[in-house]
């Protein structure tokens, strides 16, 4: 795979992998975790607010969290791209990597679908059930994305393009 070799030989990729600086690989990992907290943390709080049995939490003001969550998303898109650049072969040879991306994409779509529903508490039972179902699905999608992300460190088959014979 010439493109993987070329990516791994690029200056930025080598720096990310080999630099002893804390701003290289460790710093990018930190940003990826910070973005996780900014995006998934508030999304989890929104889901839990919708699942509150007594429905005492008015959902409308929770829309104010969307800019923060999107900032977290973009921090993770950028830091994730750098992590991919550091070890492209390791990622693309692992099916779990693509499964994680699919779960994140699906969770982000849910987040956007949920936004118009963050209005006054639903008066009727079908609306309430629908919102509860969406909140539970969103929680499950993020749990899956976190699980797959963590497993990436343990399930890869090939680290570098030079290992691909």
């Amino acid at each position, binding site marked *: 795979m010439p493109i993987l070799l070329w990516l791994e030989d690029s200056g930025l990729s080598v720096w990310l992998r080999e630099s002893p600086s804390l701003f290289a690989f460790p710093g990018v990992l*930190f940003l990826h975790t910070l973005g996780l*907290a900014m995006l998934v*943390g508030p999304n989890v709080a929104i889901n*839990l*607010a919708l699942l*509150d049995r007594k429905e*005492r939490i008015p959902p409308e*003001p929770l829309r104010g969290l969307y800019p923060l969550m999107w900032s977290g998303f973009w921090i993770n898109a950028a830091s994730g791209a750098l992590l991919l650049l550091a070890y492209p072969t390791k990622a693309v040879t692992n099916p779990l990597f693509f499964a994680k991306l699919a779960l994140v994409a699906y969770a982000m779509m849910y987040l956007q679908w949920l936004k118009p529903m963050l209005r006054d508490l639903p008066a009727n039972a079908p609306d309430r059930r629908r919102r509860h179902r969406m909140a539970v699905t969103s929680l499950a999608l993020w749990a899956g994305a976190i699980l797959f992300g*963590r497993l990436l460190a343990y399930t890869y088959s090939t680290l570098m393009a030079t290992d691909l014979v």
Partner: protein
Amino acid sequence: MSMTEVDAFLQSLMTTAPAHLVTQVAWAWPICETLHFIGLVLMTGVVGVIDLHVLGGLRGIGFNALHRLLPWGIVGFVLCLTTGAMFFAAAPEQYFYNQAFHIKATALLFMGLNVTAFYLWAAPRLARGDGAAPAPAFARFMALLSLLLMVVVIGAGRMLTFFRPPFNW
């Protein structure tokens, strides 16, 4: 306690059941890491949203209403504490002699002091309000400190791997 006694104690942790579980059972370590991260988003999500509310965001929700989420934040913290204790027991010297761990533990200690002060002095006042009036300055300071300390804990936690002894000596 002399240093040899400390080391003997650390060594003895490695023979405990939680340490065995996390090192001997296949996939136990990554599963516990996953639970640690799920705990992280539960805790930072719930606590962070409450902090943002105290700082003046999310107007229209009363402090008491938002505070109903707190049990989930506590679930997250307990998840992190339990899995974190398992990691520590499995490789005590990797943490005890790790500068990143010292920073993380110190930040967690300050977090505990901050949360105690918050519930002693700020929360009772906020609970009496309707959420419309701005929180007192000292309450806003505690909320800001809470957010900063969570960032430090996440950052230092991420650095643990890179400060593993004896590589950094």
